[in-house]
């Protein structure tokens, strides 16, 4: 544990460096997209995109300054906690994102949690030698989720449960009913890789000398596995989930569109089409910050679980 301190600082330093680089990239990315938000907005509003009208909108949004001036202003704003206003709606970006983030986090986080809960017994069974069906199921599922486009599966599921069977109100019901199928879908799509990892981890433990010793002492295989595998399996799973956390911040656009859930991912897609620079910049920054946070958390969790290993082994 004594090693966790300095390496945590190192991770934080790495994070800050990353953030600095990102802020520049983040600022420049939307500016690279062909198309002018003022023009797009005028057309969408059925107003004549005359040079005067375009210039007026650009002035309103501060897009008439040079890029370095805009960058300086933007960094200054962000550092003082002012994220600016959405070009499209005129409302503060913080409000717009704040209203939508919980939905995306619920779908992504819920789906991941469900996938983790499902993959543990599967890995466990595999290590106990009862996983003969495992390869086939995971293999099948892994091919299936690469083959079946999410939007078709989603439409079919929604149609089946709401229009055909009328079990739940998928679109206008309480949040629980609206989120059920999206969470299930994310779980289905993240299950195969996690199950694979869990199985590897359980099998590795089952081959360790200390595990065989435990068996020799008379523990049943299941009990021995439960006692000895929890820590290493948790470590490996945390590592495997970390990159999957992207689901919670931007990966669920298709599902959100189909289930008419006002999540962040869907909002970002609309913002790209509208070339809403203000929203896009804050979003990319948030994703980066979020992922840095997730990596930090994971490093912390690993340090907490594994006393032998320093945090941030990568």
């Amino acid at each position, binding site marked *: 544990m004594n090693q966790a301190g300095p390496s945590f600082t190192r991770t934080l330093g790495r994070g800050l*460096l*990353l953030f600095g*680089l*990102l802020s520049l990239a983040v600022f420049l*990315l939307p500016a*690279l*997209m*062909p198309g002018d938000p003022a023009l797009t907005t005028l057309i969408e509003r059925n107003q004549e995109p005359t040079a005067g009208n375009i210039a007026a909108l650009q002035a309103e949004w501060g897009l008439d300054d040079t890029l370095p001036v805009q960058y300086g202003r933007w960094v200054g704003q962000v550092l003082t906690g002012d994220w600016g206003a959405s070009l499209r709606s005129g409302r503060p970006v913080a409000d717009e994102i704040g209203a939508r983030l919980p939905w995306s986090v619920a779908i992504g986080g819920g789906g991941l949690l469900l996938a983790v809960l499902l993959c543990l017994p599967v890995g466990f069974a595999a*290590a106990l*030698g*009862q996983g003969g069906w495992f*390869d086939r199921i995971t*293999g099948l599922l*892994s*091919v299936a989720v*690469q*083959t*079946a*486009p*999410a*939007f*078709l599966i989603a*439409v*079919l599921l929604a*149609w089946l449960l709401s229009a055909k069977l009328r079990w739940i109100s998928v679109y206008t019901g309480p949040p629980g009913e609206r989120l059920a199928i999206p969470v299930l879908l994310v779980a289905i799509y993240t299950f*195969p*890789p996690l199950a*694979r*990892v869990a*199985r*590897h*981890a359980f*099998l*590795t433990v*089952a*081959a360790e000398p200390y595990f*065989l010793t435990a*068996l020799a002492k008379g523990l049943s*295989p299941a009990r021995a596995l439960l006692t000895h595998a929890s820590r290493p399996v948790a470590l*490996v799973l945390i*590592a495997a989930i*970390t990159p999957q956390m*992207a*689901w919670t*911040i*931007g*990966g669920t*656009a*298709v599902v959100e*569109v189909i289930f008419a859930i006002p999540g962040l*991912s869907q909002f970002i*897609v609309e913002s*790209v*089409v509208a070339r809403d620079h203000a929203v896009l910049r804050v979003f*990319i920054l948030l*994703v*980066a910050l979020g*992922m840095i946070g997730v990596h930090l958390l994971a490093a912390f969790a690993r340090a907490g679980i594994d006393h032998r290993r320093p945090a941030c*082994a*990568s």
Partner: protein
Amino acid sequence: MRQLTGLVILGLMALLVTAGALLPPQDIHAVDLLNRHGGSDPLHWLGTDHLGRDLFSRLASGGWRAMLATAFAVMLGVSGGLVLGLGAAVAPAGLRAVLLRAADMLALLPELVVAILVVAIFGFSPWSVALGIGLGAAGTYGLMVHGLAASTLGHPFVLAAQALGVSPVGIARRHVLPAVLPALRSYLASHAGQIVMQYAALAFLGFGADSGAPDWGAMLYEYRFHLFDDPALVLWPGLAILFFVLGLYLTLEPDAAPRRAPLRHRAPVPLAPRLPAE
């Protein structure tokens, strides 16, 4: 055996798609509004779509684009990942930090978001989608390769080779690459089909799909409204993607671990490959 099956599937598909693309039974652009949603007949083997175009010809001509775009994304992801990961493993500390940060940055953003941004910048085509997905994957591969490579580099035989004056490139090629490739292959097996899906997903999200240049993902998108009234339109491109992904999976996935005796017989269990931390 599995690999052979996979290769046979891929080979047959390539053959069918090449034949179909070189000698399409029908003009893929021929619109026939009097024969919409037509059934299968000698002229139209799989029937016609909502504009009366020949489904089989479109499927065949779209196959190459889907396959090439997948190959492009995979190559980009793997080569980018190898350069980042191997480079970071053998490079001096300063360069290593830069390479790892770059890999971090690419891996941080959700793949779909990277793809959307790339498509918004470069316009919609199978190549820009592949570029977006390849870039996203390069980061993940890079971190993975670096993890594997770094552990390999710690081995005594590598230290010995270094002492004998073998160049870093030589070490990377002779010792690190063989350790890294199997894991990459397995990762690819479960990842390759996503390009076609991502393409469909992007089209669905409004980043255009040109029906003048069909490919399987775009066809899924174009025909999605007919999911209920003419499911065959969605089924055929879906099946094409299924076999393509299945072929890739069987070819790339390393053979399943040899059958183990169940634990209760206390036979030693082969050590499963240890997964990289990140």
